[in-house]
């Protein structure tokens, strides 16, 4: 990557202002015209203990994931930050408080842990804040000032972001933070810089002025709004809660309705009910919520009612790890319900993709009369990226125009060439029909005749096949080298950023490599996937779960072997891990022992 490519990690304890400092940093960098990817890790507890880390990658060119090694670590709490010193690259910087007010236990100070090839910068962050603003609460902002001074980043952009951050608070709060920043800046600017971290001015392009910082959840909200969401029903759950919170601010302004229900079962029931009534309706939840929704999801499939369910995965099973990321709800998203309940599942791979998938989800749900799941995970939901909003709304307006009424009773579930039946809203003249969770005939009336169940099952499945060719939606996309290659990397969801970075790194090492993202997980775009397999001697599938759920899905669908690379740590995949497997596969054709296994159709079916 040319130009700036810098990753800064800020680590502190809950209550230290770690995430707030990271937020100011990333917004400032975006404001200056850099590309930014940022991701915060924080404890499930609200305040008082627990580790928080804000990581911000700042680059001149588009980056696709966080880097494994940060260039700079800012410690606001040595006890939490010391375990992360090893994540700082050689000749990178470690900034820490060299005058903490409390007695430090022997060996508990950062200076004892900075690696010999790293550069320690001790700064009296607490004292700087206290002297400048009268209290130590601006220690995090003083650290930002120090950072800006050390790396010669113009302070004006920071000051602008700080003003915005504290807008609405008493003026004294803003003033104190500005003073802490300025004081930190002066100290940082006077420090002799010994590391080799550099920042070049951003290459500000015309589109840069329109760039905004957005999370995956934020982009999902924008997508739902631009697609004309009319009803939202939800129950709070990490990491999906912010979707409802933001919709609650926006939807009433647009005449739309949002209701916090008593639980997830009610939320999806109301969503399906609204969809049945013709509204563009959605809900959002996480894995535990999706588990509760499974029965009603089946109703949506059986009754062929459009609805959108946004699922942001977190560590599981059960309550699991609410604030840690995982890609382990794939099976439940694709298969979770009683019976053969095929539905459409979209898994965006970046923040912009969240916008597109959320926006397209309503179109798909209506065109194919089925629930559509938009599958995110915490890493994507909470990850910030700079994105360029479209100049015009790319999503089709609600297409429903009422039933095409012919003679006789309305055949709501009639077989058609597309397997998509005519649809009527309740109460529409000529559209009277029965709707039920029971298997039914074309009129919707209950029927358990063998031939009827077979026909309806086929219809419910085959009507979705065309979804893989939905206009304006990327269901799968290949990157990197074209034609035959020794190793291809197949990925989905948030992990694909790391996959792309690994692919670029492999290419830079001279290893021919390709990668494909699969956005539509159900139904699978098999034509794309099989073409990918045809070109790759080995297919590596990295994902954040223990079992290799996507690998199983691919093996089952293609009958082809893959090499799995699974991680269930609650943290994002590491580029180096993927790259290491690519190297190994390219060199030996064998996966690393204990890390991956190669299983074919037999294994996946056994």
């Amino acid at each position, binding site marked *: 990557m040319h130009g700036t490519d810098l990753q800064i990690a800020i680590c502190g304890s809950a209550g230290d202002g770690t995430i707030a400092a990271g937020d100011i940093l990333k917004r400032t960098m975006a404001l200056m015209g850099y590309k930014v990817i940022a991701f915060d890790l924080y404890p499930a507890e609200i305040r008082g203990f627990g580790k928080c880390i804000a990581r911000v990658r700042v680059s001149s060119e588009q980056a696709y994931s966080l880097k494994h090694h940060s260039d700079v670590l800012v410690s606001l709490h040595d006890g939490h930050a010391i375990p992360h010193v090893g994540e700082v690259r*050689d*000749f990178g910087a470690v900034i820490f*408080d*060299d*005058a*903490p*007010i*409390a*007695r*430090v*236990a*022997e*060996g*508990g*100070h950062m*200076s*004892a842990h*900075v*690696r*010999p*090839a790293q*550069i*320690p*910068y*001790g700064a009296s962050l607490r004292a700087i804040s206290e002297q400048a603003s009268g209290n130590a609460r601006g220690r995090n902002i003083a650290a930002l000032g120090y950072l800006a001074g050390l790396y010669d980043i113009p302070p004006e952009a920071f000051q602008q972001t700080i003003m915005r951050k504290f807008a609405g608070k008493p003026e004294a709060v803003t003033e104190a933070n500005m003073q802490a920043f300025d004081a930190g800046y002066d100290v940082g600017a006077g420090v*002799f810089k*010994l590391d080799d971290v550099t920042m070049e001015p951003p290459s500000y392009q015309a589109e840069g002025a329109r760039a905004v910082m957005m999370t995956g959840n934020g982009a999902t909200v924008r997508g739902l709004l631009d697609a004309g969401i009319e009803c939202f029903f939800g129950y709070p759950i990490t990491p999906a809660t912010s979707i409802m919170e933001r919709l609650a601010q926006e939807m009433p302004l647009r005449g739309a309705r949002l209701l916090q229900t008593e639980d997830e079962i009610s939320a999806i029931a109301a969503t399906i009910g609204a969809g049945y009534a013709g509204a563009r309706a959605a809900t959002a939840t996480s894995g535990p919520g999706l588990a509760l929704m499974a029965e009603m999801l089946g109703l949506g499939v059986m009754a062929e009612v459009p609805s959108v369910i946004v699922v942001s995965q977190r560590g599981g099973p059960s309550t699991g790890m609410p604030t840690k990321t995982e890609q382990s709800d794939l099976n439940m998203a694709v298969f979770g319900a009683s019976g053969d309940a095929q539905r459409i599942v979209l898994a965006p791979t970046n923040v912009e993709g969240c916008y597109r998938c959320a926006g397209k989800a309503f179109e798909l749900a209506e065109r194919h009369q089925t629930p559509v799941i938009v599958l995110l995970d915490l890493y994507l939901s909470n990850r910030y990226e700079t994105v360029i909003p479209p100049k015009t709304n790319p999503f089709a307006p609600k297409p429903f125009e009422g039933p095409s009424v012919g003679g006789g009773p309305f055949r709501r579930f009639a077989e058609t060439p597309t397997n998509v039946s005519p649809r009527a809203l309740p109460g529409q003249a000529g559209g009277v029909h029965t709707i039920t969770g029971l298997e039914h005939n074309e009129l919707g009336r209950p029927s358990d005749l063998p031939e009827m169940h077979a026909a309806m099952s086929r219809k419910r499945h085959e009507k979705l096949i065309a979804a893989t060719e939905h206009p304006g939606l990327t269901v799968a996309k290949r990157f990197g080298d074209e034609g035959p290659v020794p190793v291809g990397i197949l990925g989905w969801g948030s992990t694909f950023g790391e996959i792309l970075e690994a692919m670029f790194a492999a290419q830079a090492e001279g290893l021919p490599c390709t990668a494909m993202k699969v956005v539509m997980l159900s139904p699978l775009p098999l034509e794309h996937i099989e073409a990918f397999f045809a070109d790759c001697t080995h297919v590596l599938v990295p994902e954040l779960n223990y079992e290799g759920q996507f690998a199983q899905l691919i093996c089952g669908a293609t009958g082809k072997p893959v090499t799995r690379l699974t991680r269930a740590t609650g943290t994002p995949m590491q580029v180096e891990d993927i790259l290491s497997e690519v190297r190994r596969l390219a060199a030996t054709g064998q996966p690393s022992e204990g890390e991956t296994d190669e299983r074919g159709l037999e294994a996946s079916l056994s």
Partner: protein
Amino acid sequence: MGEPSRYAIIGSGSAGFGAARTIRERDPEARISLVTISSLPFYNRYDLPKLFLGVEDWRDLLAVPTEVFDMLDIQLRRASRVVEVDGRNLTIQFAHNEVMGFDRLLVCSGGGGYLPAALSDYRHLLHDFGSFEQAVVTRKAVPKGGTVIMLGGDMIGLDLAFTLVDTGHKVILVTNDHTFWPHQIAPEERGELLDALTATGIEIIDGRRPTAIEDIGGRLPRRMVFSDGTTASGNVIMAFCGQQPSVEFLLSAGIDIERGILVNTQLQSSNDAIWAAGDVCQIWSDAGKGYKFYHGWKNVRIMGEIAARNMTGAEEAFDDPDPLAIRVEDGRIWSSFWEH
């Protein structure tokens, strides 16, 4: 097996690092902490004149690769200022509010540049060369062909002066009692040595007493004013008037200190758990019946190694080495001080 011994070494120069490496060789289980206020790993300060030869990156000055500290399992604590040593409880107090215990301590904190009291008010107008950071600042302040006024001219300064002259700079040496420090020069030898400096290209101002330093701006922003009213101007003024032992953090350590830490021939202080090596210590000389400083880069390194061996059970004396020698060879000054 008991707990491994905890060795603390204050100072990460050649004495400190040499001691740490020697301790590791003799005690594989030891916990070794090398403490320094510097932000950089071990580099040779006598290589700093290389900055005027085009070296810009501190990594090019490293005495050992950074990996060596891990290989030897030496904890390197940089950016750590020691504010106090408690010789009774065997602890080190850091400025960052941490107390570290030790079983044996070696102090090799070296010395800071000495400045005659008459000029102490002008310290802020002087440039330093004692660390990489200071050396870089000084180099940036001296343009190509620029002028350096050197007060005193100890052997550290003269080493730099030769490099400056060799790289096309002008050096004005203002002599005083510290010229050629730590050599003690007999009056009859002084003239020959000064002539040798002049022959090398160094301009000598001898016998004039500086009374003030001024910031006058312009092309040569520093001006030295002499008692006779004359002046000399340069881009920078640097004082090289010998070393002053850095012992201020030891004042309550309960060890005997005169100008430096007083140690016996085995480099052990009046506290059995504390040793000292290098420019910070005065060593008992049986021959001289008194405590003496032993300067010179080679002596410093050897002291560190001997102290380390003694801390790990040996009983080795730092015997009076050959006195430092200085002479003129082929028109240039040679000194055993500069031997590594």
